[in-house]
């Protein structure tokens, strides 16, 4: 049972932060000092996968190659997620600051922000902030430049190796792993790629210290995180909450009193039904999330929800590997056929097994994660799928 209560936190958007000062002070520290701070904080990636940030930086820093890159993954495409847009709108200097600190640790001179095409309207303001930022770096005497690269409407480009392919001017098709980005990333050079929020957290850890950050959250899920809350809630929006709370507390705070399910982690995440709210912890020890929390009340058809997700994946699969490309089509056609009565209810079992195969045999995280929503929705709302 979770021991954390729902608690609002104010780190990411905290306005008392003098970014230039934090940056100047941080860059004065040695790379080992910074790295220790990030490692100690227990910070894990905020994009959803949760890889320890300090380790990523450490691996890249150990590479002998001279040419290295820091990439900010701002290809926020997961349905139900909109926190990165808000961060980039309100505190871009913290993002850039995080990138510069990372650059110091790994020894990079060039950074990129890969911004999704849907956020084109942010670009002009970001460029302006960048000018300011570059001027500060110049004053400090730290050799690091950031460029903004635009996506063009492809969810899969949020997958790190697909993102590199896209930056290199190719179709955004995920690569085989290994090698991992810290060894061979953008232009096949050692690259740290972090989510927007992760970079801000890193920056803020340098400001408040790892100790303060660690005090928040649980052993597996240190700190706080931004949640993008949408669906059947009277107070949709972005909230920074301490990690490790029970979903029950969350629903109490944000639900409309009739919440029957919460989709945690977007279309690639898990659906938690009402009966499991109490036992479900939001965090890496329970159900992890890149921040997307979609609430559904009892008026909603979970069949429609699932169909919406599967259609999304069918279109956004890059199409290169068999399980994902064909699997998504089969899942969609299958649930439609069951709903129409063209296939018997037992076909759901076949589809469940297919989803399992997609999970274990797809080339990248997209195909592997389709089963999350598919299985959790079908398991918990079987009747809605059939009747």
């Amino acid at each position, binding site marked *: 049972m979770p021991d954390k209560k729902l608690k609002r936190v104010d780190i990411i958007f905290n306005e008392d932060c003098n970014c230039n000062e934090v940056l100047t002070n941080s860059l004065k520290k040695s790379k080992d000092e910074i790295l220790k701070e990030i490692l100690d904080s227990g910070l894990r990636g905020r994009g959803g996968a949760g890889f320890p940030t300090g380790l990523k930086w450490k691996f890249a820093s150990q590479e002998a190659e001279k040419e290295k890159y820091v990439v900010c993954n701002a290809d926020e495409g997961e349905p139900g*997620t909109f926190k990165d847009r808000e961060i980039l709108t309100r505190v871009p200097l913290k993002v850039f600051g995080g990138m510069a600190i990372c650059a110091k640790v790994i020894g990079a001179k060039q950074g990129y922000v890969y911004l999704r*095409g849907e956020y084109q309207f942010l670009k002009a303001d970001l460029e302006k902030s960048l000018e300011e930022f570059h001027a500060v770096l110049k004053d400090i005497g730290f050799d690091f430049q950031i460029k903004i690269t635009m996506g*063009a409407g492809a969810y899969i480009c949020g997958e790190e190796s697909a993102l590199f392919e896209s*930056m290199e001017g190719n*179709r955004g098709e995920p690569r085989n792993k290994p090698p991992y980005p810290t060894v061979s990333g953008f232009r096949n050079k050692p690259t740290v790629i972090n989510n927007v929020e992760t970079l801000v957290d890193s920056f803020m850890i340098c400001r408040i210290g790892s100790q303060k950050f660690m005090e928040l959250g649980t052993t597996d899920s240190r700190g706080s995180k931004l949640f993008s809350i*949408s669906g059947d809630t009277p107070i949709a929006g972005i909230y920074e909450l301490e990690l490790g709370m029970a979903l029950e507390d969350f629903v109490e705070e944000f639900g409309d009193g009739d919440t029957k399910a919460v989709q945690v982690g977007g279309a690639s995440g898990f659906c938690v039904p009402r009966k499991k709210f109490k036992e479900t912890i939001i965090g890496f020890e329970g159900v992890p999330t890149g921040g997307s929390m979609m609430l559904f009340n009892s008026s909603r058809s979970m069949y429609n*929800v699932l169909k919406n997700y599967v*259609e999304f994946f069918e279109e956004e699969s*890059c199409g290169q590997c068999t399980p994902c490309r064909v699997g998504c089509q089969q899942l969609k056609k299958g649930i439609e056929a069951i709903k129409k009565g063209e296939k018997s209810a037992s076909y759901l079992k076949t589809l469940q097994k297919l989803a399992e195969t997609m999970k274990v045999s797809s080339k990248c995280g997209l195909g592997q994660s389709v089963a999350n929503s598919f299985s959790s929705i079908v398991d918990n709302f079987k009747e809605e799928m059939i009747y």
Partner: protein
Amino acid sequence: MPEIKELVTGLADKHGRTRESLLPILQGIITEERFISDDALTEVARELDISAALVYGTATFYSFLDTKPRGKFVIRICRTITCDMKGKKQIINTLEDLLKIRVGETTKDKNFTLLETNCLGWCHKGPAMLINDDVFTELTEDKITEIIRDYMRNI
């Protein structure tokens, strides 16, 4: 055709002529033309010395790099479930009535194209849409009617 050539050459001068310049150049064409024609792609392939089939393959991978003719204003309605729950269907119906086209089509005067798109990242303010690069959120029938009329007036 000479105009396209000029446009592509200009974009290549600006962004470079390496493979990495491909997406910025294609995006530049979209900004000007709203879609990338056969001629434009041929020109890009020639400028960058990349196979035309690979340029085509790259363009068609990205939803925003349309290779089919589009109107001056491309309307993209978010189709994610949260926008759907807030009345996306009604918004589409209204748009279809206003523009006299169905989703996927372009108006006869080539001013508007109506499309659906995946999550725009405005789930707390659905339904949301893009018109070219501009965002409109919390759409209602009245609001959308006014927006479209505004656009029509300013054409």
